[in-house]
């Protein structure tokens, strides 16, 4: 697949090789912040860069497998579903990631709503 103007909701971020593994990267898009992660298995994930608990910046959390631990109060958040793990509760918006030609794009139409509810 190649990315063209037909998919205007895809936003180009940059080359996938330049994304460091297991540390979050802060991305500003249209005035909001997204945290981008490359996991140990090479998958890339994008979530809203604010913890639902008290707004901790998730890009700076410790990444373990499919989860990031918020640096503020250590809540554990799934990078794929956006769900805060029990016993805590809450949910962050997740964004679909598309990789073509070694480039990362994120889908600006968040999956969030249905997932969060």
């Amino acid at each position, binding site marked *: 697949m190649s990315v063209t103007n037909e998919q205007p909701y895809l*936003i*180009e*971020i*940059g080359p996938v090789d*330049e994304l*460091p*593994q*297991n*540390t979050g*990267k*802060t*991305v*500003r*898009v*249209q005035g909001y912040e997204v945290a*981008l992660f490359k996991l*140990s298995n090479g998958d890339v994930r994008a979530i809203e860069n604010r913890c639902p608990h*008290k*707004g*901790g*910046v998730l890009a*700076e*959390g*410790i*990444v*373990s*497998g499919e*989860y990031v*631990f918020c*640096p*503020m109060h*250590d809540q*554990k958040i799934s990078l794929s579903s956006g769900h805060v793990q029990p*016993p*805590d*509760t809450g949910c962050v918006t997740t964004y679909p990631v598309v990789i073509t030609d070694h480039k990362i794009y*994120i889908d*600006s139409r968040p999956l969030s709503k249905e997932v969060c509810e």
Partner: protein
Amino acid sequence: MSQKKKIVLVGNGMAGINTIEHMLKLAPNKFDMTVFGSEPYPNYNRIMLSSVLAGDSTVDDIVMNPYEWYEKHGITLYTGQTVTNIDTTKQTVTSDQGVQVPYDELILATGSNPFMLPLPGADKEGVIAFRNIQDCQTMIDASKKYKKAVVIGGGLLGLEAARGFINLGMQVDVVHICDHLMERQLDPTASKMLQEALEEQGMNFLLNKESAEILGEERVTGLSFRDGTSTEADLVVMAVGIRPNVELAQTSGIEVDRGIVVNDVLETNQPHVFAVGECAQHRETVYGLVAPLYEQSAVLAKRLADVETEPYEGSVVDTKLKVSGVDVFSGGEFIDTDETKAIRVHDEFSGIYKKVLIKDNQVVGTVLFGDTKEGSRIMKLVRDQVEVSQQDMNALLTGSQGNNSTAPTGLGTEHMDNADIICGCNGVSKGDICQAIQEQGLSTVEEVKNVTKASRSCGGCRPLVSEILEHTLGDQYTGSEGKEPICACTDYSHEEVVEAIREKQLTYVKEVMNVLEWKNEEGCSKCRPALNYYLGVVDPVAYSDDHTSRFVNERMHANIQKDGTYSVVPRIYGGVTTPEDLKKIAEVALKYEIPTVKLTGGQRIDLLGVQKENLTEVWEDLGMRSGHAYGKALRTVKTCVGDTYCRFGTADAMGMGIRMEKRFEGLNTPHKVKMSVSGCPRNCAESGIKDLGVVAIDGGWELYVGGNGGVKIRVGDLLATVKTEDELIEYAEAFLQYYRETARYLERTAQWVERMGLEHVQAVIEDDEQRQALCQRMVTALSVHSDPWQKAIEDKQVQKDLYEVIDAKA
């Protein structure tokens, strides 16, 4: 053979059976006993219904005396039968199923009935109380079919029920008539903190609401309030109070007021009829908690077994909320009045609130939130009416008592009598525990709990049990739980992991997790930083740091703030700076529009509010190292002016401070390390509350260690006295290295010194050979340190990976 005395007990609950248990001990084989219970179960621990509901226990777990127990002791048990008649003349009881039994002595222990609000619709299906196994079962079943529960009542019981519903995956509203929760146990401050904590767990509170009507056809669908609002409900639990169950006594001509009236040996107005537990009213008071009931049953048992006994004179009660993640304790008087004075600790950062009320130099009550460890101990002071000074109380609240002579008399368990009750819920005395420890060779709280039942119910006495273990076992005691795993990813303790790293020569974080078969393949935010630290300590030279296993402050070498900006604290060695440096700092602050410039508690300048993407430029422009101000590393060395200017000073405190700060800069430690140097015993740099505090004395230096000025204030212990500056550095090196090698990650020196014992640490440091070996290893550890800020300035890759923020165009 003499005829055995016939004892009949009506009520197979906690107080009644506790009485029987005592009697069996006091006079085995002397009685012929019969027990009636309305519920179809053997005796169980009612308190623990909360934990059955919360999913932490099963009904089987909470049975205290199984059927075999009754059999073994020859007790005739009628379960599922309610006694409906007592003939006090003929001395017989009759059950609803027609069983008639004669008695010589009769014990009424019928407990209470839950109070059901007489609301219209209260008889609908789905409206229940929370009192027995049946209710608990109803709630669990409902959670499988329904989504929304409403609990009426914001007291202890209501909140425990609500927590259970959350665990069962239901939404829950707690309706309360007052504007604060547990108002009969908590003051408004603690109550608010509790509310916030519970809200974070997902409870929804409807305060200041008076229930009006229960809505629905056959089954409840909602609840409406007097103010016209309403809420939906699939299940309504009323937890608004209890009433002593006196019906049987009343119809049988036994004197009843609010409860069955008893005297100081639990006798009713009828000969040979006694009452104990929640159904009894003693000196105008009826109790709704287990501890006082057990005190009653101990007296009654002695009375019935013809053993001499002190009269029962009433109880001072305390309460502990059994909701996971929230520690609340309250006892005695808890609302300030004109006659009371309070000692308070209120730490909003850690969510800790402690209040002790004192009247005429006596402690009369307490409220503890967030840290309830001292609860039982404070209550002992209340009960014993001990005179205490304010210092004693301060010490108790900050937990710093116990290691020196300031410990108030009568506070430690070592001062308790064997007859003193440790576990109020289960009536276990200090003597019982000591005996079990010695006779059965117990060594952990868990074992004591299983053998004696102490701390099996609400858990409030756990710290005391652990203390008794410690005293009884002395050196053999290894900690309350025996072994404590690093985190949920593994069963290995910190010590075992370090051992494995050394033995198996493991060299990176993932390898450790693999070889030791971590349950979570990639670990978590607790174990990974610990592993990274341990690997670095074991082999500082070969190990290459894993920055992905570091907490953000250490990965970025700046301190993240709650709004996501950072703070930078330029290193100012010993707190001594120059006009040039100050100017530079000021210029940087202006250039990067740094919103806040603040002096820190450690005599440094904090630049707060720096944007992530500006960090490397800020460092470059400053041209100074930064301060590790939030790392697990040496923070600052605070100094006084010393003999350079001070008329009292006998030594160069500034010079020494600078030397120490340069020496230990960048050293990784298990937790943060703060130091200070004072130029004379006036101690202006406050060396008594530092991890390593140095005080100059005539002709030498004193080294204090394990001090802490944080949440849990601890005064440092004198480790050693040395003559020269070089010796001082040598001792400091050895001390820090020993701490680095033997402390668990995130263990402050204060805890570590207490765990290891000062004498042990002293012995190691004073031994020439060991000290020098430690210093040697410290030199190696320090040799690998490089300036991370310089690296960030020079290395484009580091800048890109860690500090860059991507601006994506849509």
